């Protein structure tokens, strides 16, 4: 799928007031954290994380022109996808392949939660321990809560208005959990807005926890050539990322 591949929409799930998951008639071999470029002829092409690969699913929040255009689509309509692109999350060795079981925390904000569900499934299948901490502005913007519950992971919720879960941000939940050093995870995976990612990185560095952050940037070529997705000191989000094992703004 180096070129845009037309796939039919086979199902549309309403996740919350502004978010839908589009299930497509096709699958992809890809890692959690990788992304695809979604094209609508005559409209635009934008990057979206993989919410699942079998079948290929995308969880999309209607926030602007392009995402709203996608939200207009119905079951049976075409969607064009190229990818997978970029570097996904690096997973610890599976337990069934003699890896040590790892305690992982998955931190998500906004639609950044989408790729974490796919990641959680993979980590659980590999025998690791998964805790999920997700946040949003309010209850109506929280994503995939039921889906995570169904996976049976430990789940913490944060909303900025306190309408559900803890009042405040995901990092505040992290801080309170980390206050008991017995809780300390081996690995933190995060996806969400830049401010959240930086806060997560700082917190992890302070506690000497390994972390991987899925970054966002304006993507044009998606191939590591045009330079428009640069973050920090020369890092290309589409080629070196979107997942970085360091804070690209700091290095």
């Amino acid at each position, binding site marked *: 799928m180096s070129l845009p591949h037309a796939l039919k929409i086979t199902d549309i799930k309403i996740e919350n007031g502004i978010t839908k998951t589009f299930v497509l008639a096709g699958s992809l071999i890809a890692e959690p954290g990788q992304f695809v470029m979604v094209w609508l002829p005559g409209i635009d092409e934008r990057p979206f994380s993989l919410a699942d690969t079998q079948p290929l699913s995308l969880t999309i929040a209607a926030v602007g022109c392009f995402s709203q255009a996608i939200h207009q689509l119905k079951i049976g309509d075409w969607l064009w996808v190229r990818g997978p692109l970029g570097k996904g999350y690096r997973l610890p060795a599976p337990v069934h392949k003699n890896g040590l079981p790892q305690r992982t925390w998955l931190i998500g904000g906004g639609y950044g939660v989408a790729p974490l569900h796919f990641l959680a499934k993979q980590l659980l299948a590999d025998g690791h321990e998964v805790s999920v901490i997700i946040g949003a502005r309010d209850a109506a913007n929280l994503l995939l809560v039921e889906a995570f519950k169904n996976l049976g992971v430990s789940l913490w919720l944060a909303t900025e208005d306190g309408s559900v879960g803890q009042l405040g941000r995901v990092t505040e939940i992290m801080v309170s959990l980390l206050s008991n050093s017995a809780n300390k995870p081996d690995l933190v995976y995060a996806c969400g807005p830049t401010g959240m990612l930086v806060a997560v990185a700082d917190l992890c560095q302070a506690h000497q926890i390994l972390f991987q952050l899925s970054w966002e940037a304006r993507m*044009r070529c998606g191939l590591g050539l045009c330079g428009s997705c640069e973050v920090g000191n020369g890092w290309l989000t589409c080629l070196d990322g979107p997942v970085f094992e360091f804070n690209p703004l700091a290095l």
Partner: protein
Amino acid sequence: MIHPKLTCEFLNFKLNTPLVLASGIIGTSATLMSRAAENGAGMVTAKSCSLQSRPGHPNPVALDWGHGLINAIGLSNPGAAEEVNLLMATRAKLQPLGVPLIASIFGGTIAEFVQVAQIISRAHPDVIEVNISCPNVSDEFGTPFSGTPESAATVTQAVKQVVTCPITVKLSPNVPSIARIAAAVKEAGADAITAINTMPGMLFDVVSGQPILSNKVGGISGAALKPIALRCVYEISKAVSIPIIGTGGVSSGQDAAEMMMAGATVVGVGSAVYYRGVSALQQIWEELKCLYPML
């Protein structure tokens, strides 16, 4: 076993490697260009810049079609005035590494080329590359300046007159005789030639019936371009004796060797950054040394 004339020299510059980061490839910031310089680039070319800033084309702007890439980024750039700052910051980072900086300029008219050249000169780039693949807006068919010996020579001469650094003129493959264009730009004062720019192409989506690139037409680079570039460089090297930055489809040491056998002085690398990452040039350089261990 014959080996290419493997030099790390270009004009008066002694280079760390004979590989040059091609224009438009991550040449949009000082940090990205210095990253290229730390990863095997003997010289670095900035993204082409015009008088006014340009946003570029809407997405999709670039695709991997299996045998190469096609792009229509649309020459997005911050405009010459802003580019001066970018080039100065870049030069400051490249100088300690011993990596010369090539600025790249274009315009829709001769007057624009001259103005951009003058503005860009304030940043004191080591070389200015004159990208003449853009259409001449005063030509009714929009033929690129690179399309005829006359228009190519006119741009060359006009730019040469207003700059003090050496200039290299970047030629396009879609001409009936590139040797003739090369001879004309050399005559008009080009110190070197960069060959080649991308070959215009197009792709269609068979479900929507639409061209895939928003700009419809884009430039082909990568593997598919290699034999075209080799032939252009060969013909140019037979026609003129100035240095050539041989560019097009090089992504391995073997490709680079072919380019030198065709007559390139040094070798430009673009699409390989997608195929092999930002360290592509370093990898090509290692392979080249492996291929010709006697060097």
